[in-house]
């Protein structure tokens, strides 16, 4: 049963609100932490709409596409959104392709990103198992986009990984150039390059006589090719322009 606040409390309430306004970010009202949603949003409207809110927590997702299709940009967006929420994220970089300045420019809080550089595909999968077992990483991205891992990992490995992820709050996302987890994946997203734009001024360090403006944008097309939890596919695809920060 709710009790009406006393007259004295009501009198203090505006002063308390004023004090909180004055102190700004130094003081916050206590509230229980919000329960994480069932999906891990990327912060890109077109993608989140397509995925029904983001990549599923406690599930295994695949992002598949050729070079320059936007796989890494999508992964960085996911990592940036997770770290901005104050969550921890991990990148198991089997391709050893992380460019920290690029990740930072994409908004990833590098202090909250654990970068694991396994020497091979098997070690990468075992690293992912350890990270899922640690219970508390919101996102674990496995980067196999350099290829060559498909032969080293059998279907059973992916099934085991999905089982390990099930029941946790971790969204496991695999980047690759071809489907690897196949039937074990809860969600699969296919990307394809849809164009490039060279716009704006030349590079500040461009040599005299250098041609053309900078590469400023990549465009990708996305298709949701599998969604085990979302029922029938909601959308055939979407276009997602990635612009240069400069």
């Amino acid at each position: 049963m709710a009790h009406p606040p006393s007259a004295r409390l009501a009198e203090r309430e505006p002063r308390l609100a004023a004090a909180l306004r004055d102190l700004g970010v130094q003081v916050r009202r206590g509230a229980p932490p919000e329960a994480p949603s069932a999906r891990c949003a990327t912060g890109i409207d077109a993608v989140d709409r397509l995925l029904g809110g983001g990549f599923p927590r406690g599930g295994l997702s695949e992002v598949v596409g050729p070079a320059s299709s936007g796989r890494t940009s999508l992964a960085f967006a996911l990592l940036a959104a997770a770290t901005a929420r104050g969550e921890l994220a991990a990148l198991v970089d089997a391709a050893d392709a992380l460019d920290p300045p690029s990740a930072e420019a994409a908004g990833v809080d590098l202090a909250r990103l654990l970068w694991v550089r396994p020497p091979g595909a098997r070690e990468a999968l075992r690293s992912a198992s350890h990270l899922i077992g640690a219970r508390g990483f919101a996102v674990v991205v496995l980067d196999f986009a350099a290829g060559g891992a498909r032969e080293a990992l059998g279907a059973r490995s992916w099934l085991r990984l999905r089982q390990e992820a099930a029941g946790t709050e971790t969204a496991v996302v695999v980047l690759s150039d071809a489907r690897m987890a196949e039937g074990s994946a809860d969600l699969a997203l296919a990307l394809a390059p849809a164009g490039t734009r060279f716009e704006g001024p030349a590079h500040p360090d461009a040599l005299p006589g250098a041609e053309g403006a900078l590469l400023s944008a990549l465009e990708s097309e996305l298709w949701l090719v599998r969604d085990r939890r979302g029922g029938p596919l909601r959308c055939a695809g979407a276009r997602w322009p990635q612009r240069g920060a400069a």
Partner: protein
Amino acid sequence: MTSRIACLLVPDLPWVALVRAHPELAGRPLAVTAGAGPRADVLACSPEAAGRGVRLPCTAAQARAVCAELVVHSASAALEEAARRALLDAALGASPRAELAPVAAGLRAAEAAVFLDASGLTACFGSEAGFAAALSARALRLGLPAVVAVAGSRAVARIAARRHLPGWLARPPGEAGPVEVVTPGGDSAFLAPLPLELLDPPDALAEACTRFGLRRVGDLLRLPRRALLARLGQGGARLLDVVLGAGQEPPPPAAPEARLEESAELEAPVDRLEPLLFVLQALLSRLTARLECRGLGCAELELGLRLAGGAREVRRVGVAAPTGDVRVLLRLAALALETHPPDAEIEEVRVAADGRPLRGDQLDFFRPAGPAPALLGRTLAELEALCGPGRVGAPVVVDTHRPGAFALAPFAPGAAPPPRRERAAGCADGVRESAPPYVHSLTVRALRPALPAHVETRAGSPVRLASAVARGDVVQCAGPWRTSGGWWSEDERFAFDHYDVVTSDGTAARLRYDLARGAWTVDAIYD
């Protein structure tokens, strides 16, 4: 507060240390000798050997004559020292102030004792008896069956512990040793009925006491101090001081720095990794048990090897976060040995660890819960063991113009600032959380190392590209722009001309022309 001292006593350290290192010898009749050969003196024997009639003092040959199935081992100073230190760790797990008693001589040479400050610990353990029982259990977990006694002074506590030694050998194996608590202020009353020899008087003094008919401590207490001093001299007065608790030493000092060490001499030199790992596992198990007893984890592992020919090697193995997981430490040690195998056969192995508190960061109420700090530490250590040193951490942007440069920092997310929040008009509490808007940036995938490329140029610009990642006619191109640096050093000097190109297969790549080597490479893909 009345000073209370506990004594943790292991009466037969030589065989206890041996069984601790070789658990397979437990339950067998065992004698530890001062050297090799049948004439070597037996320093200590196990209860099983004593049960079969082996009595000290005797030689190895005499002991074998009594017990044919007797296992005889030479004493190891390294094992005994490690066991002594482990006894101190057991004590430090229960009290912050503890010290090892000096090694005794003569008949008590096989004894190891630790004194610890037991004042004020009843709040933690319920009672002094509870504290003594917990201490005994901790020692047993480290493979050290010990007697525990609590009294008002070191001497009385040690005497109270020694009082249980006659029944020591008859105790069932694997059972914690007996405990004795002397009532506070009751040291004299406790000692009165005990034989005077328990005070360890010098031989001449013991003889004089016998001559005067003084057999029990109570006989001594009944005599006036002045008369005792006149007849037995300063030695007699010192005995009385021990009994009365006068002139007590200061309480045991605070815990020393946590550097723990275990070592093993191999029966035969080893040149393969597998048998060595077997020995290392046993050493690390003992080491981590000691660390766990003190609530610590291993922050850095030192691996010492004595090689055939007398050479010594020391390797330091970094651990990403303090851990007490034997599997992780063993994997790290194996990795270090595999990477740089020793030059000769190994005769002795030593492992040492700097004990550091396990991670116990305070979680932030306003953040989503991350992994438990201890679990995160273990995970980091496991990942480093799996991937190799220097391959796990938080990425760091390096202050350099060199393309592809990066560094790794220890992963410590607790140090990060809280999520950004902004004011919002009309919000009930005036402040609300919001994620920063996503900045769409052109993302680069680094290629390490950069891939060689065959590039055809026209008027200095690339028109055709062939490489492992991109191939075809260049349909769009921007550049070049120059990146150079490290001009002050011959080794670090670099100068590159970069081009952004899109090939006919749709790949957007960053081309690099090395001005020093005159070679084309693809060093990144836009993705």
